[in-house]
């Protein structure tokens, strides 16, 4: 088991989110910025669609040969003086990281933003063992102060506004003048920069994730805008890279293809500010950099996704475009999804990692509008994969009984055209008669979910097939 999930309470989470005015205001920022910026970046690059195909093909090729690329990668890391550790699950990864920290005699650990570190709940584990983890990405730092999970995979604090951040800084940074002015976001940034600069310089171990691992050279890659990931990995004595198996790509050329679509899809930048390629510990010719370089490669259920429909999900490069374009995410935000990965990618990945019995709501809570798939840089058919989860739920009888029986009843009629026509004719006739006065219903016994928020338009009365038969085929029916 990994970090605690509230995915089974998705509906309650969503209802709470919908009634949270502050959250709703913050979510407005997602709808505005990301979408236009991505579109502009895509429009500026004529090869963008071809690059998406290329990115998809590279990931597919790598996944089909993952065992061999992992072997090649491992060999290269070792050759460059680094260490590779394999972790089957979250608990193993936590133990490996803790023991490296202990070997180093670490008291504080700085962290670059890493979704996998959220997945394995490393912060809690380190704290429980007397080591202080410090998140250094501004958004991650803020949510660490609040004891929250990120609500977005690239903008972890997107659910908050500046006033809330100010309150947290005043609560935690008690060594600073209580009367200081923090009314502007830039003042918050400056304060975080100063506080975290000391933490960077004092840290014994730095933990980062990896956007990609390169088999050709044994290189780990991180992509950031703040530079926090770099300070995390070059200042401490030991750098630990925590990455999952699907981060592998064959070559530097391949990673260049993926980088061309990553930032554009995520923030609309040509490239993020810092793209850092790290290969092993510091060399004799270096004046700085970590003395020890460890890579922890996590499986945590991913190898079982290979060879199934869900293998396509392993192409994901965590750009966040799917959630940026998702009407459901826009409505409820990331925390409602109840675990580490929100939005459409979370709706597919979470059931794979924590079980569809717990995360069953997520792939169901989609209108299948398809906007996520239309922007995915590696062309993951997210709606199709959500539908696959629904099929598995149906097969395992996890679909709610009311839905099942409703479907059965409808299926019974739909398979019997004559009966269907008879029944629908009667039902529509009655419904039309009842709704004749207003043309709609404010309440219907079988459709409470519908009529809670909107009226139900009344039917015209006669069905098409009834009228067609009467007018075009003669009065046979």
């Amino acid at each position, binding site marked *: 088991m990994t970090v605690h999930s509230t995915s089974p309470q998705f509906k309650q989470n969503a209802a709470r989110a919908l009634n949270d005015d502050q959250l709703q205001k913050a979510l407005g920022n997602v709808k505005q910025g990301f979408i236009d910026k991505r579109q502009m970046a895509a429009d500026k690059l004529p090869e963008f669609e071809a690059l998406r195909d290329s990115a998809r093909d590279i990931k597919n090729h790598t996944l089909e040969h993952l065992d061999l690329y992992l072997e090649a990668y491992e060999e290269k890391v070792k050759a460059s003086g680094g260490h590779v550790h394999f972790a089957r699950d979250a608990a193993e990864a936590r133990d490996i990281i803790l023991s490296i920290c202990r070997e180093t005699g670490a008291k504080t650990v700085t962290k670059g933003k890493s979704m996998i570190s959220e997945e394995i709940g490393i912060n809690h584990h380190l704290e429980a063992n007397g080591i202080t983890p410090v998140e250094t990405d501004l958004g991650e730092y803020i949510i660490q102060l609040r004891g929250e999970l990120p609500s977005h995979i690239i903008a972890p604090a997107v659910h908050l506004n500046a006033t809330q951040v100010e309150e947290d800084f005043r609560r935690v940074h008690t060594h600073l003048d209580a009367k200081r002015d923090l009314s502007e976001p830039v003042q918050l940034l400056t304060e975080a920069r100063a506080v975290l600069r000391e933490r960077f310089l004092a840290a014994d171990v730095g933990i980062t994730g990896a956007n990609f691992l390169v088999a050709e050279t044994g290189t780990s890659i991180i992509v950031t805008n703040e530079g926090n990931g770099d300070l995390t990995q070059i200042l401490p004595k030991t750098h630990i890279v925590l990455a999952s198996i699907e981060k592998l790509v064959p070559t530097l050329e391949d990673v260049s293809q993926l980088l061309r679509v990553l930032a554009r899809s995520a923030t609309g930048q040509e490239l993020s500010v810092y793209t850092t390629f790290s290969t092993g510990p510091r060399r004799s010719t270096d004046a700085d950099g970590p003395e020890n370089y460890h890579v922890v490669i996590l499986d945590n259920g991913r190898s079982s996704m290979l060879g199934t429909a869900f293998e396509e999900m392993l192409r994901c490069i965590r750009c966040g475009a799917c959630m940026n374009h998702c*009407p459901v995410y826009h409505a409820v935000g990331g925390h409602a999804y109840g675990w580490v990965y929100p939005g459409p990618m979370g709706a597919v990945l979470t059931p794979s990692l924590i079980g569809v019995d717990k995360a069953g709501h997520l792939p169901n809570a989609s209108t299948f509008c398809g906007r996520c798939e239309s922007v995915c840089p590696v062309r993951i058919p997210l709606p199709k994969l959500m539908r696959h*989860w629904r099929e598995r739920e149906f097969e395992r009888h996890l679909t709610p009984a009311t839905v099942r029986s409703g479907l059965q009843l409808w299926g019974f009629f739909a398979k019997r055209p004559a009966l269907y026509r008879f029944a629908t004719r009667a039902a529509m006739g009655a419904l039309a008669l009842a709704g004749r006065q207003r043309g*709609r219903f404010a309440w219907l016994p079988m459709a409470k979910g519908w009529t809670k928020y909107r*009226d139900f338009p009344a039917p015209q009365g006669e*069905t*098409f097939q009834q009228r067609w038969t009467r007018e075009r085929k003669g009065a046979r029916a």
Partner: protein
Amino acid sequence: MSAMPFPARPEKPRVGLFVTCLVDLMRPSVGFAAVKLLEDAGCTVEAPVQTCCGQPAYNSGDRGTTRDLAMRMIEAFQGYDYVVAPSGSCAGMIKAHYPELFEEDPNWRAKADALATKTYELTSFLVDVLGVTKVDASFNGAVTYHDSCSGLRELKVKTQPRRLLASVEGLTLVEMKDSDVCCGFGGTFAVKYSDISGAIVEAKAKNIEEAQAPTVLAGDLGCLMNMAGKLSRDGRPVQVRHVAEVLAGMTDEPPIGAAKADAIK
């Protein structure tokens, strides 16, 4: 045109009208508007006995029922030159999803592929296949158009309805903000996750009203019922119609969710 994957278009194409469940049950006038548009464009139209394409079962994970219904649809429609639906969602079900239902059954897969190839959403059939550039209709006033998701993303229906609307006498098209964003319908989603659906359609209703056109059009009755229901619930005075009704000049029936008396006013 020589690159078209099917034989040359027949002189007077025989079109099987896939009415769709919602149009059949709720708003047959849309079906008759589609018939008029197709006949005006020189097609022979038939409406074989039909029920549902199976999309509700498909999206609920019930592949077995979906396949059963898909087989019936395939059999009912395989004899036509084309199959046309006044819905991007239902046409998309056949075009984009039927083939993958029969991945393990080459015989049915071939039939599903054949049906998929000749199935179209109404406006895209008129424009892309028949080359229709104008319709014989008039409509007094401004309309705004919502792009229903399946039509837009599975079938690339975007310019076709707009091109045809541009030819309607007296009509002006005003674009709303986020016309390509989902209305929150999503079939059973609207009932299963009504809170979220309610929030999404609320945003849509707001964008519709802010476009300041007295009428909103779309190509899918599910979305239209959702938007109409929300607009009336929130007291936003916008009339809601299927695009086919306006293109066919058949707007005698009251708008969706309105009574006859409302329409007269």
